[in-house]
């Protein structure tokens, strides 16, 4: 890829990144951080590419380690973000869910 195309992509992405999160309430800071954290887990793609390129055992071992770490980052990140956001349910079914969860909580706590 030529340097100019890459620079353009980079600069435009910076501005998009700034814009999309410029107005966010503090309530969502933690889930947003966690979601962004999961997105950079896409380095998994890079880890798979280098595993494919590996020419000796050292390279293979290092790239497999990268795959394990990247998978943890990506999948774990999306799952934990979803768990956080699960709590932000629309108000309507909140009361019904409240009862159910209260019972579940009581049952679970002992």
């Amino acid at each position, binding site marked *: 890829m030529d340097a100019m195309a890459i620079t353009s992509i980079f600069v435009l992405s910076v501005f998009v990144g700034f814009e999309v999160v410029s107005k966010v309430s503090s309530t969502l800071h*933690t889930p947003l951080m966690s979601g962004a*954290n999961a997105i950079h887990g896409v380095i998994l793609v890079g880890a798979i590419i280098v595993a494919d390129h590996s020419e000796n055992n050292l390279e293979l071992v290092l790239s497999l380690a*990268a795959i394990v770490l990247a998978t943890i980052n990506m999948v774990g990140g999306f799952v*934990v973000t979803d768990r956080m956001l699960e709590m932000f349910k629309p108000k309507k079914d909140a009361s019904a869910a409240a009862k159910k969860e209260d019972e579940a909580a009581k049952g679970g706590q002992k």
Partner: protein
Amino acid sequence: MSSTWYSLIGLASGVAFILALKGLSHPKTARRGNLIGAAGATVATLSVFLYVTPGKDGAEAHSLPIHNLGWILGAIALGLIIGVPAARKVEMTQMPQLVALFNGVGGGAAALVAIVEYLNLGDTATTAEVIFTVFTVVVGCVSFSGSIITFMKLQELMTTRPVVFPGGRFVIAGTLVAVLGVSVWVVVALGTTPLLVLAVLSLLFGVLFVLPVGGADVPIVISLLNAFTGLTVAASGYVLSSTLLIIAGTLVGASGTILTRLMAEAMGRSLFGTLFGAFTAKPQAATGVAEERPVRSGSPDDVAILLNYARRVVIVPGFGLAVAQAQHTVRELADLMISKGIDVAYGIHPVAGRMPGHMNVLLAEANVPYDQLAEMDEVNPTFSQTDVAIVIGANDVVNPAAQTTPGCPIYGMPILEVSNAANIIFLKRSMRPGFAGIENELLYDPKTMLLFGDAKASLTKVVSALKAL
């Protein structure tokens, strides 16, 4: 799959990530946004298996399947086995350190990818590629070791206070100079040894960088390291000629930077101060032995009586509430007071808990209605009309030292001004200071009543006492 399709799928994933971040910025669309992001990441991952990226010098592509397929699938399976249960089972109170850990392993992965690609390219690497590799290795390693330290601080595996040793800032500055020097060495000499030395020095720098950060600043550091990891992913995208990695990494880097600034603002901290705290931190004067000063402690019945005759009560929840798993009990108490015609609100500090917005998540878990949650700016003017402020397991977010004691670690942080309420009740386990490790004058205020004990046990007693009245 042709390279056009591969690029188009990459572009679609990039768009999915933009939509994900956009969605995550609004409560209504947040969950959907996260799922869109997950879908984008899944599709991007699947597409790599169907397309063979050209090797060095654009070497002739080999045929599918990609090399080492079995190993790759095994490694992914291992990552799933470790990551999914950890994310599913973690207590919501421990979630911040898990996010720190996930961020750290992501940084580590980016650094490893850069190292492998560097070994693979060997002498054919261009100077630009080497510079981006050096950047990825340095920042990825800093992010990795720094995140491990934040994890240990949050998990309380080590002290949550700033760790400062004499001459520390010279050691840190020296390490930074060494990192920069070795970076130049790598670019000039192009060897494996300098790169490994660089990785080790960067890991060390990450540790030294985070050690002097106090407990209260840890969330800002996590957010910052998150942005760092994003940038490393973008840089490795350059080395691997992957537009997707460049877009995704840059998005996270940019949005992470903004988010870090927003968090720092919410906590009244200067980003600069946090960043360079490592260089400016001085060993703190010992805070002195805990003085024996009189405090007024009360029984659950005293608290119940006070509440029973109040017209307006503000509940200020803190991390201690969550640790005691008392969210459900506090909701029970609030419901009981509302049924007695008392006006009840929760005063939520933006950084109550261990991270901005953490308390909202914890209370939402207990199904506390949103309309009872009042943000700091809303609730502060109402404290003068409040009869009782109940502070449950919170300390730093109500500590007047933030307004009155220049030089204390939380000075300048906006606080919930509970001292304006007619009565203050603190539910605490002990007189131990909060996460930031600062004494709270409010505890000795004559209108303060302390109720010692586990928050959940105390609240249960208050609830039954209040029912009996």
